[in-house]
């Protein structure tokens, strides 16, 4: 008999619908006289989405992940990129898929590659700095391009100077947008977009926080399909509504009624970085042992905003409502946007050193009551895979058993499923002392 009650999420279908609509809208944008832009998942979409009229974005990383979920497609796109450019296989796997898609003039969701009207990007890593420059070259070299820098320091170093640094660039960005599109940036839209961004980021964090409950109401494999909406367009009203009014209340209800993500939860595991997207079934394999991945800095903070409170605990970043803030004008909106992103997105911290990642991850392991850690040594993304071996040592110093396995988030040529499941068998039976609960 199963240990806990379980059932699927009621809001699951809605999440899928929102995601498909996003890609459909991007493909069909020009038919409706709407604008299309390319950028990153962390590109402060509230700003370009504040342009008058209809505007749709294509964010790079989720597109790369979507391709990554199809091993055959990812290899074809990557080989196209490697063949065209001779680009090295140790470059970001998402980026290679994206370039290959353009080279083949294919859009993974159907039809030809939909060319963007402008590019609005921030430099979160060296790959992002070049990604869309190269994409523009592949698309003819005539797409207006704007980028801004966000290397302002880790969350504990953000003050007025750092916020000003980013906000001043955003003003440049607005000037760029108006010049290249011939449209105005609406303050009313911008303000609403910033409210939506806060709701998306903070309510996702609140939903993740609920995973501290035993049994966990959500498992990481499911969470991948839920956080993705925030990587598409945090500033979108429907997406913000989804997090605030659908996912979060439903997750609270699951905790209140002890509804588990996995009925036989007997071991809670901390993960790290993107998973091998084409092989998410390894999470289901873990569940045969009652092992559930329930927490990771990556899943929590890719879109979620957090803070370290006065007691040294990681807690969700406060919404604007909770802070008692009403946005007054454009400048206020931009400052709040920059502040939230720079202070709240803990995922930026590892770029500033292992000390930050170790501190955050060990806190997560403790607060989310993790029994072990399984770390994907992800060759596809150097950014999220930074400091993983230091992190392993830090977790082992907490007496947490830790396993690593090599792979690539979106290049199936670098992942060996058979070997990985054998490593899982070894780790789970020997280090964790568990037996299978299901076949």
């Amino acid at each position, binding site marked *: 008999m199963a240990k806990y009650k379980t059932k699927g999420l009621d809001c699951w279908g809605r999440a899928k619908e929102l995601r498909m609509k996003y890609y459909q809208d991007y493909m069909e944008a020009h038919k409706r006289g709407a604008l299309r832009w390319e950028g990153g998942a962390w590109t402060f979409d509230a700003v370009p989405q504040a342009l008058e009229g209809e505007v749709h974005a294509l964010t790079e990383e989720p597109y790369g992940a979507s391709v990554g979920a199809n091993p055959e497609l990812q290899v074809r796109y990557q080989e196209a990129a490697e063949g065209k450019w001779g680009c090295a296989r140790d470059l970001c796997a998402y980026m290679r898929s994206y370039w290959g898609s353009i080279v083949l003039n294919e859009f993974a969701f159907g039809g030809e590659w939909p060319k963007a009207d402008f590019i609005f990007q921030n430099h979160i890593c060296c790959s992002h700095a070049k990604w869309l420059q190269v994409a523009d070259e592949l698309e003819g070299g005539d797409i207006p391009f704007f980028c801004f820098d966000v290397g302002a320091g880790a969350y504990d170093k953000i003050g007025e100077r750092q916020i000003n640094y980013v906000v001043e660039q955003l003003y440049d960005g607005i000037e760029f947008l108006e010049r290249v599109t011939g449209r105005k940036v609406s303050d009313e839209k911008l303000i609403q977009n910033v409210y939506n961004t806060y709701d998306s980021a903070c309510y996702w964090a609140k939903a993740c926080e609920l995973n501290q409950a035993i049994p966990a109401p959500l498992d990481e494999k499911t969470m991948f399909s839920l956080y993705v909406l925030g990587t598409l367009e945090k500033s979108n009203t429907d997406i913000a509504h989804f997090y605030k009014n659908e996912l979060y209340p439903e997750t609270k209800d699951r905790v209140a009624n002890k509804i588990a993500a996995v009925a036989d939860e007997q071991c809670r595991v901390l993960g790290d970085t993107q998973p091998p997207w084409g092989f998410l079934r390894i999470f289901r394999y873990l569940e045969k042992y009652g092992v559930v991945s329930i927490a990771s800095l990556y899943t929590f903070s890719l879109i979620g905003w957090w803070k370290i409170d006065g007691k040294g605990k990681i807690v969700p970043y406060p919404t604007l409502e909770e802070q008692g803030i009403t946005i007054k004008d454009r400048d206020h909106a931009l400052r709040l946007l920059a502040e939230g992103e720079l202070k709240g997105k803990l995922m930026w911290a590892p770029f500033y050193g292992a000390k930050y990642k170790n501190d955050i991850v060990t806190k997560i392991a403790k607060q989310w009551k993790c029994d072990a850690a399984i770390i994907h040594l992800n060759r596809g993304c150097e950014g999220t895979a930074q400091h993983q*071996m230091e992190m392993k040592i830090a977790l082992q110093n907490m007496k947490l058993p830790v396993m690593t396995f090599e792979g690539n988030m979106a290049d199936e040529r670098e992942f060996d499923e058979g070997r990985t499941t054998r490593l899982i068998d070894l780790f789970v*039976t*020997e*280090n964790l002392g568990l037996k299978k609960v299901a076949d």
Partner: protein
Amino acid sequence: MIFAGIDVGGKNVHVVIAKNGTILAKVGGPAGINKAEAAEQLYEEALKRAGLKRGDVTRVVATGSSGSRVAFANGVIPDAAADARGVIKLIPSARTIIDVGGEEGRAIKISPEGKVLDFAINERCAAGTGTFVDTMARALEVPVEEMAKLSLKSTRSIPMNAQCAVFGESEVVSLIHQKTLKHDIARAVHDAIAGRIGSVARIVGLEKDVVMIGGVAKNAGFVESLKGAIGMDVKVPDDPDFVSALGAATAAATGVLEEKVKAKVVEKEKIEEGKA
């Protein structure tokens, strides 16, 4: 009672049959493409050498990358677990195991009881495995069995790439064209893999006694290089390539099996009771 352990690796199969801790037979051979068939044949050969029939063996446990292909096994244990059980039986003071086989190199930290505490694997790369030595031996045009003797003659250290077996091979060819002596190249090959394996071992932490097993442990030249790379003495048991199979046999004897083993044994006993 008699127990058997079968280690089905990437290149070779090893079988150990034991009774009351004494080894009755040890047989090894190439795994080939049809590993299940190779395991079957070598098991039969081991039984013949021990003067036994299948029914005389109480339990068979398989291990190795293709251990699950052994249809007649009563259970399967992970290879690192088999390594741990086998090594601790032979060298009770062992605390770190380095196993370098045909297709994988791994380091395992074990407890005094032979439990796996931590492990690290040289994944998806031939450059830290026996395959690297085979490839370089071919490039040098010497039998792989000669590599140890050759490298032990060398008094010179030449840095060499061990990031990739393909690049390593082309580097060997370059060294040959530069008229570098074969024994120096052989040592460079061993030093290169040892450096790589040493790095893997440092992930789990090196605690003495360090024991090396697997096919590459038979290569005395490599073992010397490994000692240099980790700065510690390395013990190598006799027949190091059979240790994992011995560990599997030990696991069979101590009843560390999967659930299906227990069910099969219970069923077999019921049938025997019925016959009696």
